[in-house]
């Protein structure tokens, strides 16, 4: 649908911009209190009171048009690029009424681009509560644009805003703010003349940003560079002069129109909370407590729904086996696709609960306090306070976590965070650890309270964090920083989480997880199933023949006979051949060809390990029944030595391999998408595989 007008939503982070976007469009999305959660450009359609439609574009939150991070640079590009298909007809600048001064800086910059502007004065209810009085009519008159007081959370004033969007002029009517030309008179005049621009501020912005904007030709960009040298233009000095001039304009404006009491009331409540949550001693313990509670909840609350999802799939598989005629196609659909899918679906409860927690922590403003508390520690190892968020998210899934690193302004900090996030124990590794620990670690208590298996699992989680930190430190020494790191970050006022937003985040992330991982798992299941079901030449026929001989057919029970046939077929299948092919390479780690097959298939996604093991150890029926896979694996004997295949050494060696290896196609893809360079995923894949091999080799030889 083509909308009648195009409207861009611009504003500082934490001003309720995303909430307003949701209210206007009815299209929900993720919103957070953590600066910069809105990273992808989001659009939605809004119906205006006069029946026309407006396409609303939600731009990333930014404090000024001078970008500090990757997603902030989108704002100027969208507003300025006249040839772009998304150039807005109107800009709605959303301003936090409790924090007018800083919010007006961005407004005055946008207004000077001379695009028609409307001001949405958000949180007007909170501002009244804090005793701030704003003469809105005078304020609007001085700015020369419509100013609509709203409360996006309480859905107040939205109709008036929609009406104002409908009435908006095609020409910009805003009053001038500062004397832009005075900042660099000759340069602005020259650029305006050569590029035929009628707006001095646009010319000045091009002088600052000509290297990053996409709509200039290289010749134009070079010419601007030349002009800058000619008129000895200094970007930072000019920016500083502009900011000072703008704030002086804003101070005059506010002096006439706004009265602010000495201490704002909302501030003190937030301060009281901060006194506890960021306390010198308790602050870190509270954070640790919240983390422990989070993981405890993820595991305990998800146990029941996970079991039910597993049961449902088992039931569906059994049902389909009975209904459909036996044959290769049924096998593919029921055992391959459905079996593989059940492997992903059981993780939905864990993912949903984890994202509910992360969404609450971001929405309330607590996540910014975590970055505040952790910055010093993280900086020591080459990371940034803001790296804490992706690292915690990494316990669920590295894919969304790597996307969330966009809020890290510093290039080196961001790259290191991306490089180490996949080391954190993600939820896909959990079933593998549970399976292997259950196999080799005795289920008994030590020191009265600690369960040995639980300790081993906790150990794997802590180990993953330590390895991430050590690797980060190594990258800190290797990588050359492009720019200085800094940490100037707003600490937003604490707010209650928006529960519908939390619910949406759970739904949205679970859906993304199922779609992303689901595709990979279905593909791998199908391929593995084909490779394991067919063999080269007439080998399969020969096996069938062999077991028809009376010494097998009579001695073995029918069930055992089928199993024996299947496992011999597997060894002679294409998958078996592949396993045998890599066996020499993994023999030093204690792995045999069967584990080799699982290792290969796991490079698509770790989750397929259990399914592969189930297929390989020819467990009939339900592939998700971990117990039965576990039993099979536990009784598996090495044909040469007669000892169990899964000894303590092999199990830990295997866990080490899964702890380090980059066995996730989705992560590789997302790292490429975020870094825009194949070098990064390649380096990551290489270093993680080498570490995995080395750690496995070490673990196997130490425990052998």
């Amino acid at each position, binding site marked *: 649908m083509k909308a009648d007008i195009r409207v861009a939503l611009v504003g500082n982070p934490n001003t309720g911009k995303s909430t307003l976007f949701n209210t206007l469009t009815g299209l929900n999305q993720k919103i957070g209190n953590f600066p910069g959660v809105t990273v992808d450009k989001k659009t939605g359609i809004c119906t205006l009171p006069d029946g026309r439609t407006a396409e609303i574009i939600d731009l990333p939150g930014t*404090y*000024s048009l*001078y970008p*500090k991070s990757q997603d902030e640079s989108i704002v100027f590009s969208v507003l300025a690029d006249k040839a772009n298909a998304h150039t807005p007809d109107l800009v709605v600048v959303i301003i936090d009424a*409790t*924090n*007018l*001064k*800083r919010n007006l*800086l961005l407004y005055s910059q946008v207004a000077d681009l001379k695009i028609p502007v409307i001001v949405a004065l958000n949180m007007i209810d909170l501002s009244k509560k804090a005793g701030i009085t704003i003469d809105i009519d005078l304020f609007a008159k001085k700015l020369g644009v419509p100013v609509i007081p709203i409360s996006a959370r309480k859905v107040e004033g939205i109709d008036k805003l929609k009406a104002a969007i409908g009435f908006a002029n095609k020409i910009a009517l805003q009053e001038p703010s500062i004397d832009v030309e005075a900042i660099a008179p000759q340069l602005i005049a020259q650029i305006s003349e050569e590029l035929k621009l009628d707006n001095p501020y646009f010319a000045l912005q091009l002088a600052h940003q000509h290297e990053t904007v996409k709509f200039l030709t290289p010749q134009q960009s070079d010419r601007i560079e030349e002009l800058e040298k000619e008129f000895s233009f200094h970007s*930072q*000095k000019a*920016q*500083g002069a502009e*900011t*000072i001039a703008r*704030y002086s304009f804003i101070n005059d404006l506010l002096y006439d129109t706004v009265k*602010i009491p000495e201490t*704002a009331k909302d*501030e003190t409540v*937030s*301060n009281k909370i*901060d*006194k506890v949550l*960021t*306390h*010198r*001693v308790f*602050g*870190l313990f509270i954070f640790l407590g919240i983390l422990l509670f989070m993981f405890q909840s993820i595991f305990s609350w998800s146990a029941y729904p996970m079991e039910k999802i597993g049961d449902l799939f088992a039931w569906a598989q059994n049902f389909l086996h009975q209904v459909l005629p036996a044959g290769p196609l049924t096998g593919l659909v029921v055992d391959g696709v459905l079996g593989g899918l059940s492997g992903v679906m059981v993780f939905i409860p864990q993912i949903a609960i984890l994202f509910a927690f992360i969404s609450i922590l971001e929405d309330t403003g607590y996540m*910014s306090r975590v970055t*505040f*508390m952790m*910055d*010093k*520690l993280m900086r020591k190892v080459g990371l940034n*306070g803001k790296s804490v968020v992706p690292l915690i998210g990494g316990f669920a899934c590295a894919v969304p976590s790597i996307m969330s690193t966009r809020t890290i302004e510093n290039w080196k900090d961001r790259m290191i965070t991306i490089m180490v996030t996949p080391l954190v124990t993600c939820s896909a590794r959990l079933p593998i650890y549970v399976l292997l620990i259950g196999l080799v670690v005795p289920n008994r208590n030590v020191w009265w309270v600690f369960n040995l298996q639980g300790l081993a699992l906790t150990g794997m989680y802590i180990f993953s964090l330590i390895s991430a930190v050590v690797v980060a430190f190594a990258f800190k020494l290797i990588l050359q920083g492009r720019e*200085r790191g*800094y*940490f*100037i*970050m*707003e*600490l*937003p*006022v604490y707010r209650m989480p928006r529960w519908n937003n939390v619910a949406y985040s759970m739904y949205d992330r679970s859906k993304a997880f199922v779609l992303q991982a689901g595709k990979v798992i279905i593909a791998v299941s199908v391929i593995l199933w084909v490779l394991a079901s067919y063999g080269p030449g007439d080998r399969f026929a020969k096996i069938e023949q062999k077991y028809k001989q009376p010494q097998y057919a009579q001695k073995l029970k029918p069930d055992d006979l089928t199993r024996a046939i299947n496992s011999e077929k597997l060894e002679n299948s294409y998958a078996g051949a592949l396993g045998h092919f890599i066996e020499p390479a993994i023999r030093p780690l204690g792995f045999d060809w069967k584990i080799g097959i699982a290792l290969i298939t796991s490079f698509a996604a770790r989750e397929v390990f259990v399914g592969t093991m189930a297929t390989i150890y020819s467990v009939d029926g339900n592939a998700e029944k971990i117990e039965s896979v576990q039993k099979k694996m536990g009784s598996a004997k090495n044909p040469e030595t007669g000892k169990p295949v899964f000894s303590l050494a092999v199990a830990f060696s295997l866990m080490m391999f899964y702890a380090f290896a980059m066995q996730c196609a989705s992560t590789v893809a997302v790292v490429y998408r975020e870094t825009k360079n194949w070098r990064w995923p390649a380096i990551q894949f290489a270093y993680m595989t080498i570490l995995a091999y080395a750690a496995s080799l070490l673990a196997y030889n130490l425990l052998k």
Partner: protein
Amino acid sequence: MTLSELVPGEIGIVKEFTDLEMSVKLMEMGCLPGESITVSRVAPLGDPIAINVSGYQLSLRKFEASTIILQ
């Protein structure tokens, strides 16, 4: 005297900056010459610090605070 020398609860007024690059970022966030800054707290590990400026709370590292000279 720089901002990093203040202890929580103390108030200072910005005079100038020692670092151009940092000053551009700080001024955008409302730390301008003439503006009053209150140090509200220090992170548990001693760095960064949280300040109140222009009616909101901002966190910055001690090093960054040391580039702000107070009156």
